[in-house]
């Protein structure tokens, strides 16, 4: 039997981890001589570290966010308001789209094989005090935590917030202790799981997507696996990845309701207003990213997604 190592960055009882367990069962039961070891919860390191280890062939398959430290073009996946709806998400993450092909090609250049893109929900702003005029980009008079990315910083500021860069691990304490008034960077589910006690409000801005990918090490792919095994792996991962968009549509809604039930007020932004905010954010933030991602590519991806 060939043993393959799959590493993930999700907590063991998160949906993504359950899917990995399911994938493990499907691969092992298919009787093509595969044994699977799953390492969940960043046991083998952060997404950045896993990327390098997969290139090296120390890890065979990874499920994590694709960081851009080895290739700036990969920052494409963290462009604010690349799309705003689940339908567009489904379109972008489907094999054959400009977005998918670009990611596939850039990963291939590094020695990685893209097996599927998994959307895990939209990201909004949570706050401990009520943000004013959320329907526009006017100044909110609030300082919120942002992760260390120029795009995220610029987008959040355009949305009308002052920003402070704080690590995810320190974010809860920072909100709890009022170092900041809130943060951007979590889906409804993550907000519910980790931050609900520290906050009072949640605004589903849909500014960013929590998007991770399945990718394999080309080294292992070529050396370790036979054709039958490769075909099975490709098929199983593609099938499971395709289910993510619908799951995240339901899961976001489910946890927005759970937040309400817990006593966190959800402040929805009307669709028209959201589109205006998105437009403004694209105007200010996208030019900053042109140099690294490429203006043409950004325009091409956006054009495909905004078609009906």
């Amino acid at each position, binding site marked *: 039997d060939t043993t393959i190592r799959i590493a993930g960055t999700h*907590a063991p009882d998160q949906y993504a981890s359950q899917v990995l367990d399911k994938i493990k069962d499907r691969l092992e039961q298919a009787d093509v001589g595969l044994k699977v070891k799953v390492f969940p919860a960043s046991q083998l390191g952060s997404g950045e570290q896993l990327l*390098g280890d997969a290139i090296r*062939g*120390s890890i065979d398959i990874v499920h994590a966010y694709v960081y851009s430290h080895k290739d700036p073009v990969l920052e494409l996946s963290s462009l604010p308001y690349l799309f705003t709806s689940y339908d567009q998400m489904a379109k972008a993450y489907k094999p054959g789209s400009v977005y998918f092909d670009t990611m596939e090609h850039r990963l291939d250049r590094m020695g990685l094989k893209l097996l599927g893109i998994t959307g895990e929900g939209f990201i909004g702003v949570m706050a401990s005090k009520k943000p004013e005029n959320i329907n526009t980009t006017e100044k909110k008079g609030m300082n919120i935590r942002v992760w260390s990315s120029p795009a995220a910083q610029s987008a959040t500021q355009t949305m009308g917030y002052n920003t402070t860069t704080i690590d995810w*691990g320190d974010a809860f304490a920072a909100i709890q202790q009022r170092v900041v008034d809130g943060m951007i960077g979590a889906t409804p589910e993550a907000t519910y799981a980790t931050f609900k*006690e520290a906050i009072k409000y949640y605004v589903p801005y849909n500014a960013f997507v929590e998007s991770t990918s399945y990718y394999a090490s080309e080294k292992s792919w070529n050396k370790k696996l036979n054709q039958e095994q490769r075909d099975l792996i490709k098929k199983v991962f593609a099938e499971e990845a395709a289910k993510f968009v619908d799951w995240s549509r339901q899961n976001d809604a489910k946890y927005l309701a759970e937040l309400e039930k817990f006593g966190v007020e959800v402040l929805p932004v009307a669709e028209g207003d959201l589109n205006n905010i998105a437009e403004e954010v694209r105007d200010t933030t996208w030019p900053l990213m042109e140099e690294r991602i490429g203006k043409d590519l950004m325009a091409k991806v956006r054009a495909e997604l905004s078609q009906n």
Partner: protein
Amino acid sequence: MLILITLAILCIALVMGMPVPFAFGAALIYIGVTGDHDVAGFMPSGHWRMNVLVLLAIPLFIMAGGIMEKGKIAKPLIDLAEVFVGRIKGGLSYAGVCASGIFGAISGSATATLTCIGSIMMPQLEKANYPRGLSAALLTSAAPLGLLIPPSSIQIIYAWVTRQSVLKCFLATIVPGLILMVLLCIVNAVLLRKHKNIKTLPPTNNFAGEVAKQSRLALPALLMPVIILGGIYGGIMTPTEAAGIAVIYAIPLGFFVYKGLNVKNFSEALIQTATTTGVVMVMFFMVMIVSRLLVFEDIPGLAEELIFSVSDNPIVILVMINFVMILIGMLMDDVSGVLLASPLLFPIAQKLGMDPIQFAAVLGVNLGMGNITPPTAPLLYLGARVTGAKVSEMLKPTLIFITFAWLPTLVITTYIPEVSLFLPELLLG
């Protein structure tokens, strides 16, 4: 097999007197040569694990401790504490335990607690004729209070992995932490009995006057914990930033107020703390690389087999879970330990009906203890470094503290759920 050989290599290298980072280097070379690994990935994995801002609190607190020591800032604080407890035999060492608990409320890390309290308390303890090994062992055994009294870095990780409420996890370890403090003091009192020549202050008839006098002298220094604690709990800064502020506040205090600092010993202090930082962090670096490789080598699978192979009696399984956690603690640092133990043991504990919040406390106590349990005992070695004691003279008293203070705390926390659940239920429902 691999685990046993790794353990054996570590033990032999350490007993020979090889520096800890290179003893781990030896283990790393063994695993790297025998296993299926790309050795070019080892060093980058250390870089990734160390490349976090939170770890910077360690050098900053080492630096603050060094400056407080050279600048004679710590002395008025301890003098003040002595006015209160100095007349009881062993009072100064109880002050050390309490100080670790209080400092634990400042920092999320046992390491920062040990470096700061250890370097400030140790000279005073030695001056008062306290046995060096015992005092160093006590301060080291009390340092994990930094992990048990919130904020705590490992509870944040645990809560993240198991999807529990961070606040509840924070609250779960407070009572076990207090129990531990009491037990440490009791064991210490027993161990101090045979030491006759410990100095205590002469009796006084002007207690209030002395308090007033020492308080006045200590006031500028007392502001330091006030700034740190107030800054963190008042929501002005993160613990790492507070550590930076502590350094900046301590420098003028040492130069102009307590006048212990001059240009010469200030630069000496800087060089010395930089070296200590380097020595400590290079050790962490190697430990983290090896910890991660052990995960790679499927220690999780082995642990599960081990636990269920013995018995299906819940009480026995609880013992086995603790046993596995102690093993993990012996082998690994606390961050790797919590990353490994929570996904591995949490489901088993849940099957037995243990509350996830109670498990947070059990895990916290276990990994805190693991940090001082050889062979992988970063705190023990760090304790030797900051106190200037020998590891060999610390070993026996440390093992006594583990057996009679830590283990009972662990048993209480494991078998009496109320201990950890009382506070979270009271405050958060």
